[in-house]
């Protein structure tokens, strides 16, 4: 328990101290919100789909969380290169608790970024459909963050150096984001795309966020919740397994 806490604390401390990382990671969501939200807004409106900024705000929150969570999970590779990973690998605590601490820490950090993006979106003119819905939305954010932190650690446990990072970004993170329906409604898309989106856990995360924040959804909420919780559990189990198998 102590080990979980201290590993969580480490992630949080590193995040809070790295002002440039906080500011830097907000740049992209702001750009997406402003450029797409205002830029494509009129087209979206003309197509009869309503306010685009309202529509993508939950998607952009999801984006900032998935990027930050996977990036945090990939921290394992840096720790391997800078040596700190060894310190945790020879410690007399189960690797499960080290992995959990890291995952929960990474998820905390990623959710905090999601909240920051929500605040920015509100400043840009986004209004949640009800303020009461914000509370369960925070829960959804944490769940998305846990899911992708665990995925990041799972992938990073199998990689030896940062060479593979670009690969992960282009073939895992970007597709997960772009195919999730974060930027477009999944209601009228070609069946093939919908099929793909149905295999993307982020689709359900963004959908649940939309349910609580703007009151519309593609999938039933129970399905969203079920998939998020189920996939998080699977990734946590797989992540712990791969993490425990690390040899240095």
């Amino acid at each position: 328990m102590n080990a979980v806490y201290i590993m969580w604390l480490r992630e949080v401390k590193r995040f809070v101290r790295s002002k440039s990382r906080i500011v830097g990671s907000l740049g992209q969501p702001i750009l997406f919100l402003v450029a797409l939200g205002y830029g494509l807004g009129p087209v979206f409106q003309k197509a009869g789909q309503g306010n685009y900024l309202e529509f993508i705000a939950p998607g952009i929150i999801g984006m900032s969380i998935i990027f930050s969570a996977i990036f945090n999970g990939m921290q394992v590779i840096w720790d391997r290169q800078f040596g700190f990973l060894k310190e945790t690998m020879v410690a007399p605590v189960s690797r499960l608790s080290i992995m959990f601490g890291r995952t929960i820490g990474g998820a905390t950090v990623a959710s905090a970024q999601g909240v920051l993006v929500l605040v920015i979106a509100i400043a840009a003119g986004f209004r949640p459909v009800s303020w009461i819905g914000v509370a369960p939305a925070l829960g959804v954010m944490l769940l998305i963050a846990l899911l992708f932190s665990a995925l990041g650690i799972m992938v990073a446990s199998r990689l030896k150096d940062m060479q593979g990072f670009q690969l992960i970004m282009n073939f895992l993170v970007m597709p997960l984001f772009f195919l999730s329906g974060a930027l477009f409604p999944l209601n009228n898309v070609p069946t093939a795309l919908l099929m793909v989106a149905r295999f993307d856990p982020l689709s359900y995360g963004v959908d649940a966020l939309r349910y609580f924040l703007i009151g519309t959804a593609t999938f039933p909420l129970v399905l969203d919740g079920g998939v998020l919780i189920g996939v998080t559990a699977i990734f946590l189990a797989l992540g712990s397994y791969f993490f425990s198998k690390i040899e240095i």
Partner: protein
Amino acid sequence: MANIIEVQDLTKTFGDFVAVKDVTFSVEEGGIFAFLGPNGAGKSTTIKMLTTLLHPTTGSIRINGHDPVADPDLVRRSFGIVFQDPSLDEDLTALENLELHGALYGVPRATLESRITELLALVELSDRRDDFVRDFSGGMKRRLEIARGLLHHPKIIFLDEPTLGLDPQTRNHLWSYVEKLNADEGITVFFTTHYMEEAERIARRIAVIDHGIIVAQGTSEELKQQTGTPTLEDAFLALTGSDIRDEAGSSTDRMRSHYQMRHGGARRS
């Protein structure tokens, strides 16, 4: 006295590369043991197996009576380690690195604070406790790692080339501290080094490993007698030859280059 480290027929292979082959040795409790060998001889691989970081291919290991494969946590509680390359979190302060270690090893809060104060004083870093490790020099990092390795009062301390890249002042300071620990607390010391005079001065027993095989064992005097040489350095060269060795960066690098070689990926160097 009883042996606190017992290694029997230890072998580790990566693919078809044999890194360590049928290694057998023991270290008695309270002893100071030097494990010498040229680059790539199998020193670090052996230490990684002793410290639960790598699983042996075959052979048995007993650390403080426990098997690193079957009971890794009991083994991990028994030793402290200073790795060949740094393993601190540079984005945390000296104090935070020690607190993290204390939490991982379950050192009680009350004891932890006094031990940290004591150890930081010993390695002369008391005035830097709240500074970030990234601002430390190589020598300061080493000293902090030694303090960290001792924080949970281990029975054995592994020092993998602890004096690499340190100036003579720091080196002397470090060794006198290690000797004092050994004398006062009875901590068993297991170290590797490329500085033969260090091994000659500090170690009570020495094993020389080359190409994954132990080529000689004994006291410094015995090794010199055996090879008929005047210094340990000469004895070492007589035992291991004077060819210059190349070492892959780490066992994982070795594994990777091996993989690439077999699968026709990268050029051979």
